Each structure stands twice: as C-alpha cells, then as structure tokens.
C-alpha cells in the first residue's frame, strides 16, 4: 500500500527532526552548566594544591 510507504517516510522525517531537537536540548542542558561562572572554590583549591607542592 502506498499509504504505508508515505507514512514511513513521514515517520522517518519526524524521527530525524525529533532527534535533532533532543540533540539540541541535550547540548543546552550541558551548556547551561558550562556557561555558569566557575565557583571561586575550584580555582582556590587548585592554587592551594599548586602551592603546597612547592613546600614538599
């Protein structure tokens, strides 16, 4: 039935579109965190670790 082939082509297109949306949203979820400013604590800890190395 040609109805079936038309349907599956539509399905295919819809699926691809949906996957693209999911991909976009997934990246947004991740980028929301990478775009936050890094808490001072991180850099302080790194500096501390670097400084204590020099004392050893």
């Amino acid at each position: 039935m040609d109805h079936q082939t038309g349907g599956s082509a539509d399905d295919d297109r819809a699926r691809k579109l949906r996957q693209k949306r999911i991909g976009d949203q997934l990246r947004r979820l991740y980028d929301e965190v990478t775009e936050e400013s890094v808490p001072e604590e991180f850099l302080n800890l790194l500096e501390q670790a670097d400084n204590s190395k020099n004392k050893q």
Partner: protein
Amino acid sequence: MTQPTLDDEAFKAELAGLIPHLRAFARSLCGNATAADDLAQEAMLKAWKARASYQSGTNLKAWTFTILRNLFYSEKRRSWRRQQLDPEVAEATLIANDDPSSAMDLLALRTGLTFLPEDQREALILVGAGGLSYEETAEICGCAVGTIKSRVSRARKALAEIIDNTQGGFSGDGKLRASEAFDDIMKQADELSSGSTADATN
C-alpha cells in the same frame, strides 16, 4: 627540551579551563549540583596530582573525564552517587536559570534521561553534549567503540520514546501526532528562549 611534557603552569591553566566541563559531566552523573561540584573538585585535584602521568598532546579533557568517572564509580557510597531524581528538585534547578516554557522541555528531557540505564545515559551525554568522539568516549568508559555507538543509538531511541509517551497524552493515537506535538513544543521553546534572553535576567 627533550620530553614534550607540559610544565605545571601550562597544565594548571589547561586544567582550570576544563573546570566547566568537569562540572557539567559531574552534574550529569550526580543527583544534585552540590554533590556534582564535590565530585568535580575531587576529580580536578586528582588530575592535578596525577599530572606527571598525563601525556601531552593527548586529549586532556578525555583524560580528566576518565578520572572523574572512575572516582564516581569507585566510591559508590559517597554522597555524590545519583539519588533517585526528585522531580521537584529538578524543576527548581531548571526553572532557576531558564524561562518556564523551555524549562519544561528540559525537565522532560532530564526526566527522560533518568529512565535510561546508566551506561547509555553517560555515553549519550559524552557524545551528544560533551563533544567527545566515540573513540574518546570508549576510552573514558573503558569499552569498545562499537559498544559506545550502540549505547548512544539505543539511548537516543529510548529517549525519543520516553518523551513521546510522556507528552503523547493529548493525542493517544498515532505516533506522528505525538511527535508533531513534541516538535511544536520544542519549536516554541526555541523561539521563546531566543526571543526572551534580554529580559530573562530577573
């Protein structure tokens, strides 16, 4: 200048530059942001201590992600283990930094992610959001490239189905209608978020 090892200053600068990514990867593994930052900090310090074993020229991001992931899985009893996702907490986290409509889509996605098996979720996040190649992800997760490819593909499929099923309530029949509705919602979210970034700051 015989060995191309990174000196400490350069290593520190590169590591500092990766902190946002360590935080994002940790956030995807942990149940909440505080636990995630704890994990990311420990991973950062562990990477710093292990800097002598890093081979310059290789991918530092993948190297630090491996450390973070090992830390996460080796200390199963630590507080940063993913707890059952509390939808209210997820909602609060998301609504805090996005407009409500887009936050709802992200919430659907985030909830969908929690239904995925752990190995599929991490593969999908590393490849689909973290910008790592299949090869790097395979190295991070300690398995074959083919395994990662199949995990990512199964995760994508499952996620689409989960989202379809949760949002298909108003069109009980026909997959096409459900996915169209989903696409419409996503499109609206895109338009809203691109149009309202200016006044989204409190």
